[in-house]
């Protein structure tokens, strides 16, 4: 399973701070959508792909991560072919592909804790209006942590139902999954308290 996003390494991208990378991503996004040049958008794709490869994650994993976005980009292109022009479709695909590659490179090279700290820092001005930046940071980390746990629970429930001869039924999968996830969340909340986190 490739969930977990962060890939440990020592690439130049890993050495940059989370703030620098997110700012860079923001600047790249603005440049892509504000620059009307088609060539700029097309040339940005191989550059972004090189940045993506520079994270040093295994090639097979990198390619596997692109499967989902590739389907999405296919749909974007199909939409433009049906309702717009080929040129507009290719331009949109090039822009989105660049952004997806750069954003993936940022997540592959940035620890969740660094990202959470950045969010906490960014939300500090909202503290006077009742926003607790530490809680938001913790929520982000927990959301990432829960993805493989929920996937594991889903697999257990599906196997248990298959072993009892039940055909795949979305409702029969979702109800126990939600119950078990809530129970896990309850226990994790206990653990967070036990480990000294103050509400």
């Amino acid at each position, binding site marked *: *399973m490739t969930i*977990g996003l962060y890939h440990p390494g020592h690439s130049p991208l890993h050495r940059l701070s989370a703030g620098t990378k997110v700012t860079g991503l923001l600047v790249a996004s603005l440049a892509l959508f504000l620059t009307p040049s088609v060539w700029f958008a097309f040339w940005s794709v191989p550059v972004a792909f090189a940045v993506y490869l520079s994270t040093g994650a295994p090639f097979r994993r990198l390619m596997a991560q692109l499967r989902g976005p590739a389907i999405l980009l296919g749909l974007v292109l199909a939409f433009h072919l049906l309702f717009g022009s080929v040129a507009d479709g290719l331009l949109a695909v090039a822009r989105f592909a660049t952004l997806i590659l750069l954003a993936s490179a940022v997540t592959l090279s940035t*620890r*969740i804790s660094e990202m959470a700290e950045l969010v906490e820092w960014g939300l500090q001005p909202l503290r006077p209006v009742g926003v607790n930046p530490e809680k938001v940071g913790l929520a982000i980390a927990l959301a990432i942590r829960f993805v493989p746990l929920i996937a*594991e629970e889903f697999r257990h429930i599906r196997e248990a139902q298959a072993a009892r001869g039940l055909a795949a039924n979305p409702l029969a999968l979702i109800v126990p999954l939600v119950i078990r996830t809530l129970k896990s969340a309850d226990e994790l909340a206990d653990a*967070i308290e*036990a*480990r*000294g*986190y103050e509400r």
Partner: protein
Amino acid sequence: MHNPQSRGAERAMIVLEGVSHDFDDRPVLVEIDLALCERRIGIVGANGSGKSTFARLLNGLVLPRTGRVLVDGVDTRKDVKAIRRKVGFVFQNPDHQIVMPIVGEDLAFGLKARKVPKAEIAGRIDAALACYNLGHLRERPVHLLSGGEKQLVALSAVLVTDPEIVVFDEPTTLLDLRNRNRVAAAIDALPHPALVVSHDLDLIAGFERVLMIEDGRVAADGLPSEVLPFYRERMR
């Protein structure tokens, strides 16, 4: 067997005085008086007997309905923050204890919660992981670890905060034999006093004291050689 009320009271680290607790009016623990001072204490009992609630009382995760729990003289009801610093808690399922997605980040979690200076955190994480030869796992995503590795990471995450006592709630239940042995060896080598709730009778056979909980009461209290045969007999 010993009289639980008198045993070691004068130098006890943990004292329970008239502790009762219930969930939805169902009594879980009834009038428990204990003084615990041994280095290794085991807790046994059938499912639903109240032993996990007992363990949770010691860390302030559960507060008693009546009576009080004192850890090193501190009442869990009055200063739960101090209690959490004193008592580390290792849960049965490490997946429900490990909060952060990366091993090193998870060890840092407890230290940050205690406001440990950033400069100190990295060194303490390295030292805690080195205790169980887990240094190579520092940057590893938690969901890629084996069950035994996860349980040792969970233990390291507790020890890195330097507690005075460690409470384990069924630490070997979900493990295969090899990983069970790794965790048992880790508990055995622990310099801290430890209280272990377990169905694994071999794990606690060498302990200094074993309590058997039945229907929310301490039904037996003494040496493992006294309590465990009694417990086996009751479980027939």
